[in-house]
């Protein structure tokens, strides 16, 4: 069975290669075939500088070069930066290094117009945008240290404005049942299964409402564990065929992978 983890983070640390080697060992042990690296997105807070963005993406590039068969890069961006820097970074990561997507976190809300150039570029290059999301009625919209949370209604608005861009909404558990309903009308939105504890019932609900084709397995390691996060897919009361789609086949198709 093909297993692709769409939501993992590589961490800026003293020995990133050693750390990644161990992560890959643990992933392989559980039958995972590929990891999508989204970068160390919270290392420098909500508003990383261009230099910090480059540092984060540099590490992803190095790791993907070292394990090209196992790792898939995503280009981390801060929409507050000027267009030239953003486009240069997209050129460097997507065109030159063959990264498969863009990662956006909490620098601005998903409704912010500063996302527009990024979204237009994603549409032009036909690459996916993976955006952080959580239910802001529980955790609030404005982050204390600065920055903005986006919730499923913000992702839905973004999807409505850019219907040709394939968007992955992060954190199924974070958006919850209401989040599933918010993105349901937008076929260009997928959701990853990461986020929080493996609360039961939500996979079954998402399959029923969205269809299994719009759900992607994601773990959010290293804050989470492959075992526990795979457990929510294996333990869900859904068909085996649906599990196969969620675990890897959907991601393979979405990212255009030959594996």
């Amino acid at each position, binding site marked *: 069975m093909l297993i692709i983890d769409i939501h993992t983070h590589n961490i800026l640390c003293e020995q990133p290669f050693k750390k990644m080697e161990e992560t890959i060992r643990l992933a392989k042990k559980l039958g995972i075939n590929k990891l999508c690296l989204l970068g160390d997105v919270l290392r420098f807070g909500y508003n990383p500088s261009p230099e910090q963005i480059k540092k984060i993406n540099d590490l992803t590039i190095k790791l993907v070069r070292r394990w090209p068969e196992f790792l898939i890069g995503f280009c981390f961006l801060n929409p507050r930066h000027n267009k030239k820097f953003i486009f240069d970074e997209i050129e460097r990561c997507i065109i030159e290094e063959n990264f498969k997507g863009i990662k956006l976190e909490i620098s601005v809300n998903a409704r912010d117009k500063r996302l527009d150039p990024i979204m237009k570029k994603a549409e032009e290059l036909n690459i996916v945008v993976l955006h952080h999301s959580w239910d802001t009625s529980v955790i609030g919209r404005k982050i204390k240290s600065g920055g903005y949370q986006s919730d499923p209604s913000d992702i839905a608005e973004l999807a409505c404005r850019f219907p040709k861009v394939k968007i992955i909404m992060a954190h199924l558990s974070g958006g919850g049942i209401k989040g599933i309903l918010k993105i349901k009308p937008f076929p260009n939105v997928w959701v990853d299964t990461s986020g929080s504890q493996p609360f039961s019932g939500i996979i079954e609900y998402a399959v029923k409402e969205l269809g299994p084709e719009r759900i992607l397995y994601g773990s959010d390691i290293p804050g989470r564990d492959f*075992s526990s996060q795979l457990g929510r897919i294996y333990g869900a009361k859904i068909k085996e065929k649906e599990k196969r789609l969620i675990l890897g086949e959907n991601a393979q198709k979405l990212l255009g992978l030959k594996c």
Partner: protein
Amino acid sequence: MLIDINVSFGNWPFQKFLFDTPGKLERHLKKEGISMAFVSSIESVFYPDPDVYNKILFKKLKIFPSLIPIPIINPFLSNWKELFEEYVAYKKIKTIKILPNYHNYSLSSESVNEMMEKLKERKIPLIIQIRLEDERNQYPLLKIKGVEIEEIIKLANHFPQVPVICLCPYFSEAILLVKETENIYVDISFVECLDTIVTLLKEIPARRVLFGSHTPFLYTRSAVMKIKSADISEKDIQAITFKNVWDLLKL
């Protein structure tokens, strides 16, 4: 063998559970490889007198020997002492559970001290449900914080003879609870990081860790897979999966 210290039965307004009869719950747990489970009533969390639903649970589980009921006690209700004696007399009862934050009291209160004295006298362990949900996933108008870790540590250190089993601590909380005391045990249901069990055992000994799945709130398989994927010694696996709870509850 897997013994699960953290299972509930009943209805919860914010999740739809599949196991609406004890038979279904038992079959599900067996399928996951869990041969014995300690079960509390979910309705006892909110119903003003937990005893009403404790008794309903006792009755429902009577014909399911692998499902052992755990009564929930609220030491701030005037009937708790008589109920405690009644529960202890019921031979299946091995421990009692409290939910200080759902029942709105502090662990540093006199009533809790009285309860601990009784537990000490009867040599019965206490279970503290630190939380039922991740605070970031709660219904926005019903936010219940986890029990203060410092309060639990203080209580456990004040009654070192009473084993205290803490359910659903986060990773850092579990480490603190065990390191700061001699008599606290933690379950693995909410403990999570990359390579959870191996990482956890670098910090605290296996003899203080218990298998708990927090079924049906969480997917049972997640806790099972944490254990099955862990590269640890057979001795440590046995300690976590059944031996510790077996010894603690004198099964």
